[in-house]
């Protein structure tokens, strides 16, 4: 069981309110990702749930029990830190055993769980090494192992992949997703990387300046972002946001169109533009196209085979069924 409820939870450091009162429910077994730009309060929110920071107001309930004043050790949650936070003076085995040792678990049960975790995480050969002798990915797996053996009600991940290189990050992303499928334990995951959020989450919580901008499944957020901020934040590359006469045509203050929802033609279309920088990813190519009368260049996605070069003149046509409209407050117009 791992149902976490935040009821008007707020946090202030001195006079600075980093999280205004917010409500959020994390269901048992859900993979929830907190995502947002640096300083949006996502890590603080996770630390409030963990109990590493005291709330300034509101209530945190875990499985229906008020846990607001419960010390971190007693909340039944396990946490994986960005820096791994392994105990450098202990072997991998002792690192993984530490939470069980603190809980006073019998030695043979400890050994059984260590073996199981090591096997699941490919750490069996490294059990007697110190963290300093491991690579970044292995260290992160030890941190995860230390979290699993306790069989917590929920796992908390604080940007666990940011210290890994790009290739390793993709691998670990899959491993964590797999772990979630296997354990079906609640996971709360903090990241600034919207790709991680999109690929891993059952539910994404988009935060900005301590406020929840939108909660929903990755596809909900992608299809119908509630406001301009979410529209710009979710999706890679970013959604093109246009203001001015073009938006007026659709009776909106801002309109948004994703790079994948713009058709390219060499002879006719709604907008005439000049190709600027192109980014070739192999499977796809992203063109940055300057359109007359638009403030910013548009990003357009095409298949990897499209041959367009710097300076070429092209015509673009947005797919109106995928056009997002926002009002003066930046809110979505249905």
């Amino acid at each position, binding site marked *: 069981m791992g149902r976490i409820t935040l009821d008007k939870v707020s946090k202030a450091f001195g006079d600075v309110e980093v999280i205004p009162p917010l409500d959020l429910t994390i269901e048992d077994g859900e993979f929830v990702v907190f995502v947002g730009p640096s300083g949006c309060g996502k890590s603080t929110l996770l630390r409030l749930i963990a109990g590493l920071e005291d709330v300034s107001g509101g209530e945190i309930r875990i499985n229906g029990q008020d846990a607001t004043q419960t010390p971190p*050790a007693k909340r039944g949650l*396990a*946490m994986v*830190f960005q*820096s791994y936070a*392994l*105990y450098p*003076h202990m072997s991998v085995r002792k690192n993984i055993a*530490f939470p069980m040792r603190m809980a006073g678990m019998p030695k043979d049960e400890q050994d059984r769980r260590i073996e199981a975790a090591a096997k699941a995480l490919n750490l069996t050969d490294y059990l007697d090494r110190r963290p300093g002798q491991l690579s970044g990915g292995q260290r992160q797996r030890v941190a995860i192992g*230390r979290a699993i053996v306790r069989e917590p009600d929920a796992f908390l991940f604080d940007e666990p992949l940011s210290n890994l290189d790009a290739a390793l990050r993709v691998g670990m992303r899959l491993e964590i997703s797999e772990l979630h499928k296997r354990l079906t334990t609640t996971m709360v995951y903090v990241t600034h990387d919207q790709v991680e959020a999109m690929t891993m989450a059952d539910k994404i919580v988009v935060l900005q300046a301590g406020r929840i901008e939108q909660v929903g499944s990755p596809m909900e957020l992608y299809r119908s972002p509630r406001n301009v901020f979410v529209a710009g934040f979710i999706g890679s590359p970013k959604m093109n946001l246009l203001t001015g006469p073009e938006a007026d045509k659709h009776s909106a203050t801002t309109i948004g169109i994703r790079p994948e929802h713009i058709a390219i033609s060499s002879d006719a279309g709604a907008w005439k533009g000049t190709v600027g920088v192109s980014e070739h990813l192999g499977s796809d190519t992203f063109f940055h196209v300057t359109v007359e009368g638009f403030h910013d260049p548009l990003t357009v996605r095409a298949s990897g085979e499209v041959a367009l070069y710097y300076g070429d003149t092209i015509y673009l046509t947005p797919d109106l069924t995928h056009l997002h409209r926002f009002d003066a407050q930046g809110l979505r117009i249905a």
Partner: protein
Amino acid sequence: MARSVSTNRKLVTTFFAWVVGLAIFFPILWTILTSFKTEAQAIADPPIFFNFHWTLENYVTVQERSNYFRHFWNSVVLSGGSTLLGLIIAIPAAWSMAFVPSRRTKDILMWMLSTKMLPPVGVLVPMYLIFRNLGLLDTQIGLVIVLTLINLPIIVWMLYTYFKEIPGEILEAARMDGATLRSEILYVLTPMAIPGIASTVLLNIILAWNEAFWTLNLTAAKAAPLTAFIASYSSPEGLFYAKLSAASTMAIAPILIMGWFSQKQLVRGLTFGAVK
């Protein structure tokens, strides 16, 4: 960044380094040499350097007249005891200052250090009276307490600096892993800070071993450490340089040997945090 240094310059620098080093070491060398001379040779003018009749007579006399080992044992108890007691108080104090600082932590640290700026003689009379009234004069326990209090600011400062270097996330991880405050300090913080604690212990033992003001003023015979042992050769029946030197050599030898073997730890401890 490497800087090219000419051979000449290296020679000059090395020469001066040796001169300064020898100048600093000379008093100790002279004391040791004198301790092997007769009283007459010790005060000879011009002074004799190596060309004298080496004798162990002074050491025998000193040991016969005043029990060296009793003083030595007192020194061990006082420096060891005050260091241990200091650590027991300073580790939690430094923990709280390093990991849960309040708005006043810096001020408290400064204030603690400022107590070291007070001349001890300023509080000699009140301290003496307190000790007399509590029956602590000339007791090991009384001196252990005084030495602990004197060196506590330094222990707290040093440990604070070391603890600051330990990432807070590791302690938070311990907390998440179910460690109580006691287990967190005992199983995570302390083992990680062992190098720092070691150099703090070494420095503190040296400071306590050499402390002469309070040990001389608050002891008479029973609890008197080696400082009192040396001092006892400096007055009543006039100065006996050779014997005084023998006593001094015997007093500083243990700590000198310990310092020699733990040089690396000590240097690391004293320069810690200077370069990051």
